[in-house]
């Protein structure tokens, strides 16, 4: 069993450390792994978030308030006075064992970055990586929910053209200039426009928050600055959430690397305030802009040209391709190419491509939302909450609703989403559905040609997505699920 503990006392020079020592000895004697954070006068070395995420139980031996206790939310917890830990640590450890055993499932945690699986019982890289990603995802989900629902409300009250009214462009053949001066927003686009703008602003933070808190998960607070900057730059270069994911991991790794360098004492004082933020941000920022930016731009251009060359090809094949692209990175460069291709096709009078693109962008959140209902055990509680919002987001053609799931478990989730979207888009092309609006989802159903068949394509794509996600998530989980009870007793 893995235990994390925090000890603290009023003065922080004696009992804090005695309790830590006693707990460590008792845990080792009982054959457990333990990590103790001593919140004393010698300065608290915070427990690495990955260790917290992997812990089966938490022990607080504290006579004063434990700092940052929200890190442990949802974990089986044993609390005692610091003296009890010194006098009788073995019984506290035994209580922690009992608490871990009677805890529902590791998924029960509310918003904590808890890994859903314990595939790597030894706490290898897989567990750690998953812990980091889940940290980022758990902080991102509220942004997805708040932003996505506000955007959907904007569509509901203002019609789907509200997005075009705010951002400018063409909607259903009507040209809108867009709102350039935000003080004119209410006058030009109404309250629906205000809702949309707030939602879109929250959405613009998705990738920075994801990247920032992945880095936070790895390197604690110093990771936030380089992580968030990496996420903002991922937005700027159009790298999408996958770019942000990579940027966040890079930022965390860079901070950890800088920390390993031994520095003279005079410099040590300014390390956390000046040196680490400055250096890590500079390095990760340069990597994002100089190393990653150019290939992404080139790939985007190459994909666009390639798609243009396919314009005359078999319609169903084109639909399948667009579906695969839409679901690949949900707002990232590949998705953008496919979406832009759809919008451009509308301008040139081909309305079928746009219909296929939209349905492919709706099935990922919808399919995932259904999966969280059908097989809730396969998802963390944070993901299940994201699933509730994903219904509305998917129906509104807000593909980003699927990002929390994809970022937490990209290898299993992304291919599943791609299959479902390919099915939906291929069917839409086969049915000859048309759409003259660039967005709106279910709210523009009146603008869709052959709407009943379109809904059929949507339903089919959603079901395929759900089925693929469930199968993919079940792979590699069946075995550890059986191991789990045995592990809890040991």
């Amino acid at each position, binding site marked *: 069993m893995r235990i994390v503990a925090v000890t603290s*006392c*009023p*003065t*922080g*020079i*004696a*009992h*804090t*450390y*005695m309790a*830590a*020592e*006693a707990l460590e*000895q008792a845990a080792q004697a009982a054959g457990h792994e333990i990590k103790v954070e*001593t919140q*004393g*006068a*010698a*300065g608290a070395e915070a427990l690495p978030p990955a260790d917290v995420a992997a812990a089966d139980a938490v022990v607080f031996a504290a*006579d004063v308030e434990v700092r940052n206790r929200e890190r442990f939310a949802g974990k089986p917890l044993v609390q005692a*006075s610091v*003296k009890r830990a*010194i*006098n*009788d640590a073995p019984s506290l450890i035994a209580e922690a064992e009992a608490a871990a055993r009677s805890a529902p499932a590791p998924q029960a945690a509310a918003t904590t970055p808890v890994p859903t699986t314990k595939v790597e019982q030894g706490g290898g890289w897989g567990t750690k990586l998953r812990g980091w990603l889940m940290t980022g995802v758990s902080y991102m989900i509220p942004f997805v929910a708040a932003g996505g629902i506000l955007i959907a409300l904007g569509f509901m009250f203002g019609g789907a053209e509200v997005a075009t009214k705010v951002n400018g462009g063409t909607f259903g053949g009507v040209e809108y200039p867009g709102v350039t001066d935000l003080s004119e927003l209410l006058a030009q686009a109404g309250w629906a426009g205000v809702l949309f703008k707030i939602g879109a602003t929250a959405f613009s933070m998705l990738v920075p928050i994801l990247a920032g808190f992945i880095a936070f998960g790895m390197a604690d607070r110093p990771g936030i600055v380089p992580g968030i900057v990496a996420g903002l730059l991922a937005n700027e270069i159009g790298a999408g959430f996958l770019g942000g994911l990579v940027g966040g991991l890079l930022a965390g790794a860079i901070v950890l690397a800088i920390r390993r360098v031994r520095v003279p004492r005079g410099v040590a004082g300014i390390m956390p305030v000046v040196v680490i933020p400055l250096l890590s941000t500079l390095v990760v920022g340069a990597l994002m802009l100089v190393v990653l930016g150019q290939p992404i731009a080139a790939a985007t251009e190459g994909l666009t040209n390639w798609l243009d060359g396919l314009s005359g090809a078999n319609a169903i094949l084109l639909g399948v391709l667009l579906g695969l692209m839409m679901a690949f990175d949900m707002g990232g460069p590949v998705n953008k190419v496919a979406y832009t291709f759809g919008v451009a096709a509308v301008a040139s009078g081909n309305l079928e491509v746009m219909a296929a693109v939209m349905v492919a962008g709706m099935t990922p959140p919808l399919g995932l939302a259904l999966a969280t209902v059908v097989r809730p055990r396969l998802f963390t509680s944070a993901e299940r909450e994201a699933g509730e919002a994903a219904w509305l987001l998917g129906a509104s053609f807000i593909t980003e609703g699927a990002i929390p799931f994809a970022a937490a478990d990209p290898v299993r989730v992304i291919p599943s989403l791609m299959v479902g979207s390919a099915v939906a888009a291929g069917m839409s092309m086969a049915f000859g559905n048309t759409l003259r609006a660039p967005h709106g989802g279910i709210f523009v159903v009146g603008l869709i040609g052959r709407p009943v068949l379109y809904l059929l394509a949507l339903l089919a794509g959603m079901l395929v997505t759900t089925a693929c996600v469930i199968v993919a998530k079940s792979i590699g989980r069946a075995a550890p699920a059986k191991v789990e009870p045995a592990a809890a007793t040991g």
Partner: protein
Amino acid sequence: MADLITPDLIDLDLDAADRHQATRSLAERLQAAGRVTDLDGFLADVRAREAQMPTGIEGGIGIPHARSAHVTQPTLGFGRSATGVDFGAEDGPAHLIFLIAAPEGGGAEHMTILASLARRLVHASFREALRQAPDPQTVVDLVNKEVLGQ
């Protein structure tokens, strides 16, 4: 940095009726060694800590301690009482009394030494060795060896 403990900070035949007397007796040794500048000020800080929660722990140990502006360097005073002094532990009086004095705002290095001292106190072997120590120099050597690794 000077030693955490020296022979003149040790009283192997501590004679005190209660914990205040025991603490004062050890604190006087700290003052004589120039490690505590204001005896009453320091004792007030120790009492304030003791009032929050008695510092006695099971196994006959009392650990009066404070971070105080009247302390010049991290210091350990050690007293051994044959009759025992009540420090509020549930299983009886304390026979080993450690007076830990930490300077207010002491650097992390100071605190790390005191932290490792506190960690050693939990070990039964360390306590037993202190109980058996024939003279103050043995105690000093023990602390240096166990806490500072010297």
